[in-house]
């Protein structure tokens, strides 16, 4: 009961603050989006444009700004715990994005890559005016993906759902095949080649000890990590020692990566906060 009261007050206070900020922002830019017209297109206007008097408030963009801000706050509320605000934001994001991807999938994949190849005439009239209505000589091959696609949809018919296994198998099989070559080439051979370094680096003045150590250390690390991922031998005796060294190398790598990624995440957070403070509420420390 008390908790609820506290939260109600807090939320009301936040709403009040947001509105008051919007109302009484001296620069009149908090909680609003300004636009100007350039070559018949509406684009975002900045302070200079406003001072020049060519900008005006865009109500739909302002609504967008508020939605973005409110959803950002809703998602942040998850830090406290799961709550209806989060659920609303979550469901919206999921629903909108799922629908969005469906539409994108239809317009950017199905239409240009399948229908446009198979029946360019129809598509030209209907969706893609720039398209040549002549069917390409290879266009007819696109009947194969169409058939596979239809087979995949057979899943919806319970009695014929087994048909969908075939295209699925085709996808998995071709992917595996294609990937294997790419993998062998990019990860396998080129990676091996890249680790061809002289273990002892001779220079004109003698041996470059530091570089030699670096190279040797790198090669030893690579080989010991390789031993860790060698599955045929139980980690016992000497193998255990080598793989342990490999583990340490992995751990060091992980540590470095952890740090790097955390930095990246903090940057993401900063961007979000920047959006809230600057773009939405126009709060600037300077």
């Amino acid at each position, binding site marked *: 009961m008390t908790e609820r009261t506290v939260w109600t007050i807090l939320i009301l206070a936040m709403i009040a603050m947001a509105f008051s900020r919007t109302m009484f922002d001296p620069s009149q830019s908090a909680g609003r989006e300004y636009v100007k017209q350039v070559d018949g297109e509406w684009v975002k206007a900045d302070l200079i444009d406003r001072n020049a008097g060519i900008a005006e408030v865009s109500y739909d963009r302002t609504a967008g700004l508020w939605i973005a801000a409110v959803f950002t706050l809703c998602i942040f509320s998850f830090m406290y715990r799961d709550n209806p605000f989060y659920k609303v934001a979550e469901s919206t994001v999921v629903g909108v994005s799922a629908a969005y991807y469906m539409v994108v999938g239809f317009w950017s994949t199905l239409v240009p890559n399948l229908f446009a190849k198979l029946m360019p005439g129809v598509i030209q009239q209907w969706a893609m005016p720039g398209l040549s209505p002549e069917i390409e000589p290879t266009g007819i091959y696109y009947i194969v993906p169409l058939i596979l696609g239809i087979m995949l949809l057979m899943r919806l018919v319970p009695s014929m759902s087994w048909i969908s296994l075939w295209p699925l198998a085709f996808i998995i099989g071709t992917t595996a095949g294609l990937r294997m070559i790419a993998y062998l080439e990019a990860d396998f051979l080129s990676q091996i080649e890249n680790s061809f370094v002289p273990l002892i680096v001779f220079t004109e003045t003698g041996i470059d000890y530091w570089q030699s150590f670096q190279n040797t250390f790198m090669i030893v690390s690579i080989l010991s990590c390789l031993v860790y991922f060698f599955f045929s031998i139980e980690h016992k005796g000497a193998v255990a020692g080598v793989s342990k060294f490999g*583990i340490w190398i992995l751990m060091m790598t992980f540590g470095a990566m952890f740090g790097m990624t955390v930095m990246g995440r903090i940057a993401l957070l900063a961007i979000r906060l920047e959006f809230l403070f600057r773009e939405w509420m126009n709060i600037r420390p300077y």
Partner: protein
Amino acid sequence: MPVISPDEINVILATDCGSTTTKAIMIEKIDGHYRQTYRGEAPTTVEEPAANVTIGVANAIAEIGELAGRKLLDENNEIIRPARGNEGCDIYISTSSAGGGLQMLVSGVVREMTAASAKRAALGAGAIVLDIIASNDKRKPYEQIQRIRELRPDMILMAGGTDGGTEKHVVQLAELIAPAKPQPRFGSEYRMPVIFAGNKEAWPMVRDTFDDSVELSQVENVRPILDRENLGPARDMIHDLFLEHVMAHAPGYDKLIAWTDAPIMPTPGAVGNILKTIAEKSGINAVGVDIGGATTDVFSVFDGEFNRTVSANLGMSYSISNVCAEATMPNILRWVHVDMDERELRNRVKNKMIRPTTIPQSLEALIFEQAVSREALRLAYLQHKEFATTLKGVQQQRTVGDLFTQDSGGNSIVDNMKLDLLVASGGVLSHAPRMEQTAAMLIDAFEPEGFTRLAKDSIFMMPHLGVLAQVHPQAALEVFERDCLIYLGTCIATAGKPVPNKVAFEYRITGDITAQGEILAGELKRIPLAADQEARVSITPHRKLDAGNGKGQSVEKTVHGGTVGIILDGRGRPLLVGGETGYSRQDVSQWVEALNLYENESLVSSK
């Protein structure tokens, strides 16, 4: 039952009604200490024609009475109480495993989790677990139902789900058990007791699933959360129901219950009880084994954690054939240092199975029987180790550093290196003609590491003392230490594979005896040290071997003697005998000689 203050108890009478014999002992207070004084034995009379267990009890007590010259029974064959002069006793207690003991069916959701907890509860209470019904036991529901129907347990323990956990599975199990309408073993005179020790929130639904044909009761969950086990309430309930229902319907038990001053306990439960008490009082880790004709019980207390397993078909008479089938003949014969004909032996084993009461007459038969017992004990201990584990299903708290030692739960808590006391009981161990044989069987089967004291239960009075510990712990402890155990000595062994022909460890003994020397890999040496003697032993193992302080680190400890003395074991652990990589028959012969196991020279040398 009359309440007597413990100080006034001078004469204690205890019986253990086994499936074939009823053993009675008398404990008297002599010079302020409790000592076991007389014992008697008589055939158990649960079955026809007598069909009254008290007759056998009275016979056994009468035997004591004759020996002690004390009148214990009155004209009606009732025990005279309290003791007055040369008559009667102060308290009478009893255990029972007659009629096959307490046989239970347990159920739980996940075999390795709640079902294992339920099994532990049942075994700890002294029951034989006939089967475990679990959601993941890979049997189809109808097979499970079939199984429930076939078995005729005395009692059913249902567990499953943490408190607030799964209800579906628990109710599903109830839905299997209820329609199967399990029949109790002792006829249909009473309703099958079913204990529910699972998710308390599922209880109302479980209760609705069963009808009046069973006696349903609820206790606290054996696994309230996955990270903790709570077996006490379930064990107590099993004991209560054992008395109330199962025992009360066995012939003559109503009378026996009335006689006793403490609740009758199932024999194995009582043994576990005394072992637990001893381990707690002395702060040691102990393993006890009771090898019987049909089953082998292993009890262990490690760091206060008590576990018991019953290896149902590992025994020396009824189950001897099964031991041979499970261990296989070559594995048994690897312990035999003389030539024997395998086909002949197979028939002998079967003959022992169909005539379980016979005893080995020739030395050859004894050697073979002791070889079988090594395998039976080894297999039983293996089962015990697999069962006595840490809890499974516990969330692991890890740091990044733990990544590469990703252990899962369910590791055995049995650690031979930490074992302090190994107690043997059961015919083949207790009645071995030489104590050295008992010690050798224990060491070969259990492979103790580090310093381990070996003992045997002189006349199998651990059950009696287990019940006594409930009413008079002090008396139980005194008798246990003075009369119950016969100390064989101390085994000192190193863990790890010794390098052939190299020294396994060096030893230096000071104290009541002094000695020093080296033990070679694969060597076994006995140094006599009497039961009342003590010695300080210092061991420096080879750099690849571990005597308790890590590889190559020396260990020094005070050891107690016994009828055998100190056994220095340089054979390494695990002990590999037979096959192509293990020790050869020649090595086994050397061990036999080193420990002077068998007298007959002609047999020893006829390899």
